[in-house]
């Protein structure tokens, strides 16, 4: 089973080589101070083209116990994502997003189905057989992207010392497009620290397994 960890993602996505490396720590909190996990933080250069990420790497979304794992994935544009069904039942995975419109019929314990995500954007996933299954893929067009850990933190290393836009997206973030943004000037030296306070909405209760 493949699990995407922020640092692993950074290593996989990092495409360019920069001499003037800067570091950035981002912390996402709720208004009452609680950590926000699974928030995707992406960086884009200001007034200059952001290099594209490498699309190579192992990316997988597991289906286990009638759930997708993980809830949120970050993959580079052009990535091939394996849909690995560990359940003894079939799943009919689909998305109607602008970034990727597809359906995938995955048989019991079938682990060799692959989908290529060739357009940047948010791809919500569902299963037509099991309505309670939901997950999100953020297909990114930057080498600097990762999601927050259980403490609401994510760190970037070896960034260019330049002005960047920091975008924070979460599937239940209370903001247009479920996203907030701010600019920051990165420089060499100690890691810059950016803190975001975001409100999350509660998702509706998922339907029971039903008949």
């Amino acid at each position, binding site marked *: 089973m493949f699990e995407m960890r922020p640092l692993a993602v950074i290593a996989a996505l990092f495409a360019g080589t920069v001499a003037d490396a800067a570091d950035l720590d981002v912390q996402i909190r709720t208004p009452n101070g609680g950590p926000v996990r699974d928030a995707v933080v992406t960086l884009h250069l200001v007034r200059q083209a952001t290099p594209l990420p490498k699309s190579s790497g192992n990316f997988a979304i597991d289906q286990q116990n009638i759930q997708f794992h993980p809830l949120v994935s970050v993959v580079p544009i052009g990535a091939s994502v394996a849909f690995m069904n560990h359940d003894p039942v079939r799943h009919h995975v689909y998305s109607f997003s602008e970034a990727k419109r597809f359906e995938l019929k995955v048989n019991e314990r079938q682990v060799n189905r692959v989908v290529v995500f060739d357009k940047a954007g948010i791809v919500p996933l569902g299963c037509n057989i099991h309505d309670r299954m939901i997950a999100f893929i953020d297909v990114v067009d930057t080498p600097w992207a990762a999601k927050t850990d259980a403490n609401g933190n994510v760190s970037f290393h070896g960034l260019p010392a330049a002005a960047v836009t920091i975008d924070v997206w979460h599937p239940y973030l209370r903001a247009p497009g479920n996203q907030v943004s701010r600019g920051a000037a990165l420089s060499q030296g100690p890691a810059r620290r950016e803190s975001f306070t975001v409100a999350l*909405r*509660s998702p509706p*209760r998922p339907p029971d397994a039903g008949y």
Partner: protein
Amino acid sequence: MGWMPRQIRGRPWACGAALAACWLLPGVAQAEDAPHLPYDFSATADVRLIGVDGETSWLDGGFGKLRFGPGNGDDVRIRPQAVEGTLAWTPHLTWSLGATIVAIAQRSQDKPIDLSEAYLTFKPMPVGKVKFSARAGLLYPPVSLEHSGPEWGVRDTITPSAINSWIGEEVKTTGIEITAATEVRGNRLSLTAGLFGLNDTAGTLLAFRGWALHDEKATVFSRQPLPPLDGFLGMIQAPFTRPVISLDNRLGFYAKLTWAPPGPFELQAFHYDNRAEPKAVDSELQWGWRTRFDHLGAILDIDSRTRLTGQAITGRTRMGHKMDGATWIDTRFRSAFLLLTRQVGSGSVSARIEAFGTHSHGSVADAEYGENGWAITAAARRPITPFATMVIELIHVESRREQREDVELSPMQDQTLGQLALKLKI
């Protein structure tokens, strides 16, 4: 009577001790896969150790409100009991078309094996923001919040509430049901509409027997016993009811609205009307019962391991001709329960309280046919292997019905039942 021995002969205590010892086996993680049958078949079996007092069960010709009673003049009876077996076939005909066919054998069923459910499911890939799905065939309307799975098993307890016991024994429809579901500003909404027939006798048990608490389910060809009827009622009504028949070829309908706002809460509203002709009767003395009811269901996930479930129902059923300005039988009914379930490891503990009642306004069945009662249930469920689960339950029910004096019984009755069930599923 039943397909299984009413009492396991020989060494009942040894059987009971073996059953009880199963509870002490090490538990199992829920993630482990259970063995399963090929070709989309699954099977269940249910064996219990039972201790019960009170009156003989209504299923055995008595007035007891539970699935079991002491019988044979005993005050208390403890015995092992084979209760139920099912064989379900849930083939995937295509990726959007499936079927559910369930054969069942129950302790009190008068056919050795009978059909419990048989329906097609159609769930096309959504083309927009609204998801459509449909079921067609012999099925339970989507009322119960306590049952799940193709075999329509009770999830957290052994005995369902009075409301869902009645759904199980009388409200089984044959028709088509369409559901549209969508999400609007973080609110999950779904609307279900159904047209059905073959459910014209729904209400018979509620009027003649009153509410009961048990997990005996209606089947296509079997019949449910009625309590002893005397006088005029004994002449016009057969001593049993067939839940899955039509007497007037009129279609009934139901509709359900589900609303899940942002947060861990869900509310369901349901309306049912079988539109049966109350004067319709067949040669077997089965009558049309015009039954309508409204139902509310709610689920609150207090935290990730604790759930509060509630259901409430109110309705009316009428049968027979008009006489002295009233239909022979005109019974209003209502009930409500709250069920609290806490996940513990891979099992759960549950507690339920409920109240129920009927008011009778008929010209033949007058006010003394009405009843009021309550019940309390405590249960614990513990998976012991990937294919075996133990459930222990204690249920107590009390009720009052004046008409019982006509058969020289006290209007009051109470009953306590303890059950230890071994439920197998492959």
